């Protein structure tokens, strides 16, 4: 398991540095800009009131724009789940099926290594990669924040990153589960991406449309705190998202333990049907052949 973990983590170093450094620079810049924005609060408030409410709904509560948590949420944490969510969905859907489709999984799984050990090694590498991306990003914020008037400590800043991390795990593990059920990685990434975007839109639009409030209760975005986590994490929400993430990971493991490792041309690329449906289909085939 550890060999798989270190090897997979090594393969992700480009992602860690690429995503991490870009987001760290962006974060540092945004934190540094806070003082400038605070100096021009009156002008900014007038500008914000001129924006249509439909647009404002996607970025959170603009009344909180001049508090650290409101500012960081609007400028960064409101849309990060969408941007890094796409990374999580792509990485999750390709965690096992990526190797399967490129043909490298066949040889790896022929080594004396249980499927569970392989699965856990890959899963841990994905979680660690995501964690390290967020850690590098957090460092960009944390380095700049003491030099501003923003009344937050680097430790306070870690809270919204934790909220974001759990959210990314949820969608990464969901995409992994979908990749175990759907015929290809592309389908899984597409379905996971659609759910991510739909969740973002439903939760955002529910702020201006009361009809969507009930539906939004089922949207994971509803339980993502973002910048608000600076003033206190909602452990119930964190626990709920983490619970579902672990459930998806468990179901994906269960499926991986039982499925065939596919190679091209074997006819194993169909949609995975539950066993009871397969039995029924075979039975009906048998009956029709008897008739």
């Amino acid at each position, binding site marked *: 398991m550890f*060999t*798989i973990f270190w*090897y997979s983590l090594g*393969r992700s170093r480009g992602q860690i540095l690429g995503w991490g450094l870009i987001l760290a620079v962006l974060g540092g810049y945004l934190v540094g800009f806070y003082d400038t924005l605070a100096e021009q609060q009156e002008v900014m408030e007038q500008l914000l009131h001129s924006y249509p409410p439909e647009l404002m709904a996607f970025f959170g509560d603009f009344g909180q724009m001049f508090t650290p948590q409101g500012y960081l949420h609007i400028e960064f944490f409101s849309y990060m789940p969408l941007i890094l969510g796409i990374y999580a969905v792509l990485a999750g859907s390709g965690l096992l099926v990526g190797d399967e489709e*490129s*043909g*490298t999984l*066949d*040889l*790896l*799984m*022929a*080594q*004396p*290594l*249980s*499927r569970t050990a392989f699965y856990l090694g890959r899963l841990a590498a994905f979680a660690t990669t995501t964690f390290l991306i967020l850690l590098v990003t957090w460092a960009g914020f944390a380095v700049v924040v003491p030099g501003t008037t923003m009344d937050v400590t680097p430790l306070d800043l870690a809270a919204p990153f934790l909220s974001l991390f759990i959210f990314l795990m949820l969608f990464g593990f969901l995409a992994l589960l979908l990749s175990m059920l759907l015929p290809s990685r592309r389908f899984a990434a597409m379905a996971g991406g659609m759910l991510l975007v739909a969740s973002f839109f439903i939760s955002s639009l529910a702020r201006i449309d009361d009809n969507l409030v009930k539906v939004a209760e089922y949207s994971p975005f509803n339980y993502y705190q973002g910048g608000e986590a600076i003033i206190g994490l909602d452990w119930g929400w964190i626990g709920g998202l983490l619970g579902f993430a672990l459930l998806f990971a468990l179901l994906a493991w269960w499926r991986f333990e*039982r499925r*065939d*490792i596919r*190679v*091209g041309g*074997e*006819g*194993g690329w*169909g949609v995975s049907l539950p066993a009871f449906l397969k039995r029924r289909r075979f039975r009906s*085939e048998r009956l029709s052949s008897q008739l």
Partner: protein
Amino acid sequence: METTIVIYAQGLLKSYGRIQALRGVDLEVRQGEIFGFLGPNGAGKTTTIRCLLDLIRPNGGALRVLGIDPQANPVAVRSRMGYLPGELHFDEGMTVERALRYLNKLRGGRADWSYVLRLAERLDLNLKMAIRNLSKGNKQKMGVLQALMHRPELLLLDEPTFGLDPLVQQEVLRMVAEAREQGATIFFSSHILSEVQEIADRVGIIRLGKVVEVAETASLINRSLRRVHLRFRAPVDPRELTGVPGVTILFQDDGLSATLQVEGEMDALIKKIAAFQVVDMEIERPSLEEIFLAYYERERVRVNST
């Protein structure tokens, strides 16, 4: 002395949706032998091998590899095996050496690295090369090397010489023979019949997901099929010869010469041609390839007639 069975399959079934890939494979491979598994594309060779490794799960039948059920304890089976996949792919971002060290690490670092270097030298494989820059043949060499490097008890090789030039093919076959001399059992699939004929002790022929014949390679070649070239003093009506059971005319020229394929015993033909004045008679044993094709033709006719 009792023979140990290393691979045992009985009534092995595997379907992919509506496609029945294996329709009851029965197979026994003995310890220390080289077993050639023959069949055309889609016959079920790769599916059988992947069931042995627990990469895919059969829908029915019994399977034991090295005395172990691969589904119950796949790690124990794989730790004693070397495997060369038919469709070989490596992580292209690595060098040959790094990939081999990685695979070795997954095996608990069992391979003796000086042995790896010796194998690489024999195959003329540069370990410092990036995998993405390797040709198909060099990737195949790498596949052979990783299968052999930890000196496994059982080698499963799916088309081991595919993509290799004739000189390297010979070297690989020598390595396989050496592995057997050191006590390994080798199960390999191929449709290059000449190489099966060259090194296999026994041959299994698979057709449409069922093993239709298992025999000693030599006895399969010697047993049933012969080619007979005849030259007569006076023309002979070919119908006289086709009436003999097991005889097919492959070629005839004005009734003075004929080439026949004889399946089964020669007795009936010899008695038949004794009535004519025979100038010359030459009996040729066919290659495994011809036997294989004859097998398929016979099976095809049998299936069509039923």
